[in-house]
């Protein structure tokens, strides 16, 4: 045992203890929730009700329900009553179907001040459930840093003070894994949730969920990245959550029909083995397989989303990243995931910062990291991308928000809103990797200009206007946030459906609700407003479903079955949708169909919308998008794609661009695109059963069976 861990072990001081008999899992549910209050040190068990299972299903649904009951309309993210709820969902933990080990985390966000949810891999969720719990509610705040231990082998939960350093997540995960395990082999039975120093100093803190990689002999990390959940975690003075469960088997989830799960799992695993190398190469490159096609289709964000491609993007292409990943490793973030997308760079040696010169394992880069930290900031150096990825993870800050924040700052710097005096000497031009890396260290360590940058784009717009005289209108146009959350890394300008997919979301612009760019722009499968509205109903509901179950979305459409070639709705991948219906029924013993699947999501989705309303958000004004997400803000942007835009003016808008100044063309294009966006909102709201102001109609809530008195009370105020 290492000296650090020895010291940790000796320092353990139990502040509260709760002993329990781990519940038997019945058809995917433990039937119990673990409630922990850090202020009072109270630990208790709550029953999961039948109504919760019927209406909220699990995962994000449980998280929203518990949070709804925990907070008041005026609760802020850093109030003690705010909770972090982690719930895996009924399907989570099966080993036979790829992507079945996810946890959903829900809290009030320091970025949006509203409800945030994040879907994350790693072993914590399944081990936590098999330790006897469907959900974990963490409320209150500790005085000093604490660790919550959940020992599922012995039925013991403790809140403890431990002498540890919470600043570097990769080290803390490793140390706590070693602390809890009795041997090297036993380490695979431990999972740690932690954050890092960056979560204490910014609003973009993440949670890292670990899984022990037996081949690399190291704890690896997956992120609940969006919306500052790690910031809440550290504000509550939680240093880590640690779970141990040593009896994992193919039967742990105790499903109603294990044979059906096995049949479905073997079928898709064979599919992956047969087709992945010729399709998306998830096993070789993970999501970074998107780097090259996104650049080719002008969809890769470049220079704060001004452009969709760059001549230097070849520097961080899919192939370049593939060459950096260690190959032939089963990189699944949960056991049994044949898609194995979570790639790693082994033996990477950072050139800067506290781990300069030391060998580290970097989890990623995934597409979002390479696009956000790389191309969006005009940096096309793979070593920079890998190093920035590593530090964001270990400091506990969101790579997506960090990328979009730095890109915004760089554009402000180039526009003269910021200068070297303001940034403390950092020359934050697009492409300056050295300055960007230093800014990440400052965000991670809470120093210099990093303290300001870590506030997120929405607050930066205000600060730059008030303190440095920046033009608020211009910054509103180019600051890529909606609801306070930074955009994830897809160029949406040429896909109206994706513009809605980003901004007509519950939590803010994250592609996990709807990713319609290819369907809309490349394949032209959504030519009318009605078709776009249908897609913006169906896909957000369908994708929400993964978050209710503890599933990953990737095995749905990052592997395409043979049957899709003859399918009448190939964009939905009907065979795989049926797989999921079969899995749910096989786990729970229920008998839902594809329509009920969408209804399950609609209940939770509309409940989340009402939750936003309750907190003072959730209406049409909050679904507005920055114009940079809809079209060319500047003349420079227009001229870079002049042929395309002139053609659109002529053919779509009915204006002859000849003889017009670029400024006039930008204005005409803007009027047209903004009107279309407003029309899109109208048709989408209608399809979703909402008023013109985006409020779910009472009859819709009644039809869904979520017309609880407290829900109706919130909605009535807006009708």
């Amino acid at each position: 045992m290492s000296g650090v861990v020895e010291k940790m072990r000796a320092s353990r001081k139990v502040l509260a203890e709760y002993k329990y008999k781990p519940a038997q899992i019945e058809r995917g549910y433990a039937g119990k929730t673990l409630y922990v209050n850090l202020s009072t040190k109270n630990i208790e068990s709550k029953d999961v009700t039948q109504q919760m299972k019927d209406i909220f299903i699990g995962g994000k649904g449980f998280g929203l329900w518990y949070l709804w009951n925990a907070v008041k309309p005026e609760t802020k993210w850093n109030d003690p009553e705010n909770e972090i709820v982690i719930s895996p969902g009924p399907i989570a933990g099966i080993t036979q179907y790829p992507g079945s080990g996810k946890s959903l985390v829900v809290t009030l966000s320091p970025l949006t001040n509203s409800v945030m949810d994040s879907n994350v891999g790693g072993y914590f969720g399944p081990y936590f459930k098999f330790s006897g719990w469907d959900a974990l509610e963490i409320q209150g705040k500790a005085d000093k840093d604490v660790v919550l231990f959940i020992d599922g082998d012995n039925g013991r939960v403790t809140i403890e003070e431990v002498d540890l350093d919470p600043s570097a997540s990769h080290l803390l995960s490793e140390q706590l894994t070693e602390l809890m395990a009795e041997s090297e082999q036993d380490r695979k039975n431990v999972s740690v949730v932690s954050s890092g120093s960056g979560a204490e100093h910014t609003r973009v803190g993440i949670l890292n969920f670990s899984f022990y990689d037996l081949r690399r002999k190291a704890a690896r990390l997956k992120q609940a990245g969006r919306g500052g959940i790690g910031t809440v975690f550290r504000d509550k003075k939680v240093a880590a959550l640690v779970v141990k469960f040593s009896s994992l088997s193919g039967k742990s989830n105790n499903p109603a029909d294990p044979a059906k799960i096995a049949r479905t799992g073997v079928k898709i695993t064979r599919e992956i083995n047969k087709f992945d190398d010729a399709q998306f190469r998830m096993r070789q490159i993970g999501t970074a397989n998107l780097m090259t096609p996104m650049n080719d289709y002008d969809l890769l964000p470049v220079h704060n989303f001004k452009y969709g491609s760059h001549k230097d993007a070849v520097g961080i292409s899919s192939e370049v990243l593939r060459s950096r990943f260690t190959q032939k490793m089963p990189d699944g973030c949960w056991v049994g995931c044949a898609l194995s997308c979570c790639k790693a760079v082994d033996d990477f040696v950072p050139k800067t910062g506290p781990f300069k010169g030391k060998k580290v394992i970097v989890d990623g880069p995934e597409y979002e990291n390479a696009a956000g930290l790389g191309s969006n900031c005009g940096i096309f150096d793979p070593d920079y991308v890998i190093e920035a990825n590593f530090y964001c993870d270990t400091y506990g800050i969101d790579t997506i928000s960090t990328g979009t924040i730095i890109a915004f700052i760089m554009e402000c710097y180039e526009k003269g809103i910021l200068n070297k005096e303001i940034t403390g000497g950092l020359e934050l031009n697009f492409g300056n990797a050295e300055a960007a890396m230093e800014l990440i260290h400052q965000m991670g360590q809470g120093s210099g200009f990093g303290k300001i940058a870590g506030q997120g784009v929405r607050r930066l717009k205000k600060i730059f206007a008030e303190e440095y005289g920046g033009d608020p209108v211009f910054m509103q146009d180019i600051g890529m946030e909606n609801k306070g959350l930074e955009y994830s890394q897809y160029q949406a300008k040429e896909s109206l459906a994706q513009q809605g997919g980003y901004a007509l979301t519950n939590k803010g612009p994250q592609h996990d609700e709807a990713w319609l760019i290819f369907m809309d722009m490349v394949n032209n499968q959504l030519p009318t407003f009605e078709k776009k509205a249908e897609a913006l109903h169906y896909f957000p509901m369908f994708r929400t479903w993964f978050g209710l179950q503890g599933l990953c979305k990737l095995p749905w459409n990052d592997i395409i079955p043979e049957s899709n070639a003859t399918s009448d709705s190939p964009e939905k991948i009907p065979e795989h949708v049926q797989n999921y219906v079969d899995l749910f029924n096989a786990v729970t013993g229920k008998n839902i169909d594809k329509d009920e699947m969408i209804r399950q999501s609609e209940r939770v989705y509309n409940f989340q919308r009402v939750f936003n309303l309750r907190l003072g958000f959730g209406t049409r004004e909050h679904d507005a998008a920055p114009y940079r997400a809809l079209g060319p803000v500047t003349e420079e942007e227009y001229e870079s794609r002049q042929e395309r835009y002139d053609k659109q003016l002529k053919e779509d808008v009915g204006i002859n661009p000849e003889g017009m100044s670029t400024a006039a063309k930008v204005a005409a294009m803007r009027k047209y695109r903004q009107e279309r966006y407003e029309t899109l909102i109208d048709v989408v709201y209608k399809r979703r059963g909402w008023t013109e102001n985006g409020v779910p109609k009472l009859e819709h809530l009644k039809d869904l069976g979520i017309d609880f008195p407290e829900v109706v009370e919130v909605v009535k105020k807006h009708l």
Partner: protein
Amino acid sequence: MNIVGTNVKECTLCGACETTCSTFYFKEDKRHKSAIQVEELADKQGTAIKVCNQCGDCIEVCPVLAIRRTKSGVVLINKKLCVGCFNCVGVCPTGTMFWHEDLTEPFKCIACARCTKECPTEAIFMQEV
């Protein structure tokens, strides 16, 4: 190493190998619980004998290191470590990592040679490779 060699032309689909294997390892005569399985080809133009050639492709995809090659070259599943994910079933190039709905873990031929001794036509035999 020794593997079960095949000569499909001699196979009469009598099922003696399947009975031997499933009876010995699972205590019941159930052909789908045998680690060697014989069947008529889909085009009815011959037979297929499905039995592991000990290639070991399954070893590298096992997430919990439950599959290993012994000194004698045989690929073995450690049932105590196995978590029943069936990745090995999905990746097996010869379709001879088997699973059965009664069982949580997969199973395969470990070249014990019992079936070869019962084959009446020498369609299967132990072979040094």
